[in-house]
């Protein structure tokens, strides 16, 4: 496992550098931030001073070299906007995002597993149809709209939760509910598909042949096998949450990394942007590695080259095989 980890970490390093270099270059394309940070009638001299002070007049490669040199010393530069070290700002914002994303994903997975499994028990049944519609609709509502609706209904009209902020435990409810929608909607589809597949696998019949109850069959046999595809998709969705809860964070005043990132983009606060991207990219790569580990834990198979002699493949058997590999929706 350690060799696996080492290999993965090494193989993630280059993409990571590419991401940072890309962000670095793209950010510089958005123009000199001088006018944003200097008084409206700043003189040419002031502009030049500003530019020189921040090293924006160096060739891009030199800037990059300086930056990476700093990163190696854990110096991520200073925010143009607040004058704070960018690293500190990012590390402060990141836990908020992580907590939000973590709780959201946890809930999404749990709910999706319950709803998805239930739907899979009777493909095309009434539960399936309803949950399919509902989850799809949930996933396609614009999040900011839902957020403001939620504030209006639950905070103002009903007064159950605070409108926004992080002041009390109840203030988690709305952001999570809003963020939950898309992961939940997508995951329900995936879990359902994987469960339909899993429930038609031969080992389910085997479990039934031992007299296992329906609950046992679903929860112990089908679910564990359906977990792998769901895990992969959940990983992708979590990446989305880590990278992009911008809208929800800015509406609810959630002091997270998404908000910080968009602010630093709009404010051309390059050091903060780069630090934020670096941190999120690292955590995304780490997440991917975790998912691979989780995958291995869920399923002991290393995809061996066991190749049974395929004798007498009947049309029905061929058909069944096909059914088994393809989730219906």
């Amino acid at each position, binding site marked *: 496992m350690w060799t696996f980890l080492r290999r993965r970490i090494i193989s993630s390093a280059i993409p990571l550098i590419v991401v940072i270099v890309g962000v670095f270059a793209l950010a510089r394309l958005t123009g000199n931030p001088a006018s944003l940070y200097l008084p409206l009638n700043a003189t040419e001299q002031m502009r030049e001073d500003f530019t020189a002070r921040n090293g924006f007049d160096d060739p891009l490669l030199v800037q990059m070299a300086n930056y990476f040199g700093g990163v190696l010393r854990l110096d991520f530069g200073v925010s143009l906007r607040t004058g704070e070290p960018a690293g500190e700002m990012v590390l402060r914002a990141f836990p908020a995002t992580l907590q939000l994303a973590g709780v959201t994903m946890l809930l999404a997975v749990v709910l999706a597993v319950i709803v998805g499994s239930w739907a899979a028990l009777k493909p095309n049944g009434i539960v399936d149809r309803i949950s399919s519609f509902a989850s799809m609709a949930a996933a396609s509502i614009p999040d900011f709209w839902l957020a403001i609706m939620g504030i209006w209904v639950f905070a103002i009209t009903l007064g159950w939760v605070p409108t926004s902020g992080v002041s009390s435990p109840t203030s988690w409810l709305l952001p999570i509910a809003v963020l939950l929608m898309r992961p939940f909607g997508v995951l329900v589809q995936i879990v359902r598909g994987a469960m339909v597949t899993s429930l*038609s*696998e*031969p*080992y389910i*019949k*085997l*479990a*039934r*042949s*031992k*007299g*296992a*109850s*329906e609950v*046992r069959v679903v929860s112990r*046999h089908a679910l*564990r*096998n359906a977990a792998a595809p769901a895990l992969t998709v959940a990983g992708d969705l979590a990446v989305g949450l880590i990278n992009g809860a911008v809208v929800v964070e800015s509406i609810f005043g959630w002091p997270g990394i998404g908000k910080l990132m968009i602010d630093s983009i709009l404010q051309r606060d390059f050091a903060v942007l780069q630090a934020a991207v670096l941190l999120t990219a690292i955590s995304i790569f780490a997440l991917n590695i975790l998912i691979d580990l989780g995958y291995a834990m*869920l*399923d*002991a*198979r*290393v995809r*061996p080259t*066991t190749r*049974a*002699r*395929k*004798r*007498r493949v*009947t*049309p*029905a*058997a061929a058909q069944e095989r096909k059914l088994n590999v393809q989730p219906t929706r």
Partner: protein
Amino acid sequence: MSTITQTVSESTVRAENKLVLDVDGLVVEIRTPKGTLRAVNDVSFQAFSGRTIALLGESGCGKSMTAKAIAGLLDPVADVAGGEVRLNGTDLARLKPKERRKFAGPELGIVFQDALTALNPVYTVGTQLGEAFRIHHGLSAKAAKVKAVELMRRVGIPEPESRVDSYPHQFSGGMRQRVLIAMAVALNPRLLIADEPTTALDVTVQAQIMALLRDLRTETHMAVVLITHDLALVAEEADTVAVMYAGKVVETGPVREVFARPHHPYTRGLLDSVPANIGRGEDLKSIAGSPPELHNIPVGCVYQSRCPLVQDICRAVSPPLEPAGDDRAVACHFSKELDNV
């Protein structure tokens, strides 16, 4: 056809062989886009303790469907539409799922056709072997594991203590098949259904597995329903045979007699297709054509399109399975004439 089954039973009940399974007029229907079709059409046979009955037939003739119907494990698209499946006198087909589960394991064990994929890949072999004890005897995980080791030893898996924590993929095909058999016989069922237990295996392993099954049968005196398409295997392993064609049983009887003197042209055709009996370079006698599609079964005899003896009556009237000598029965209008062809 019930008369026949009775005659069979009378002759075999002789010693200590008791009737364990009595399948009577079983009908299984499958709902498909092209309408409802009968994969198993009025199938009757019996299994006796300590004996092996083989269900023989070509691919798609309904063997597995019959097995699954008996075990109550039909796919959602298939239904038992008629007939009875009595296991020690209880009609399984009429039981509620919950009651039925009580039979699965202690009374009836089944080894599935797609054996190599039937084990759950994410649990250790020990966990899966112990599951039956946990379900039916309420054993703890630890006690179940002890039982699992015992079982593995019983089916001849070397070093069971160390292999009990292995995952299925770490086992070879033959070992997995042993595990599956172990699972099926875990609770000493009175009936074991083995659906093509060795089709995916090498001949050398097949020999091992069949030896194991024979030993287990002798040991626990269970009744075995062996499903296969391999004539030679039937010849060596089974006491009686039921030859199936397009969802129907076309001929039954003691293996030896049926193979020596088939009464049905289909049985005859099958025997003639075996290459071992023909020398190099000569043409084999194959059965021309192919089985009818289930959704398009003709009126009359199911075998009419391939039968060398076909006459007008075959196209109009389906021949019932009727007694034809000692312990034997055949569904053919012209079984008498067969020997003259």
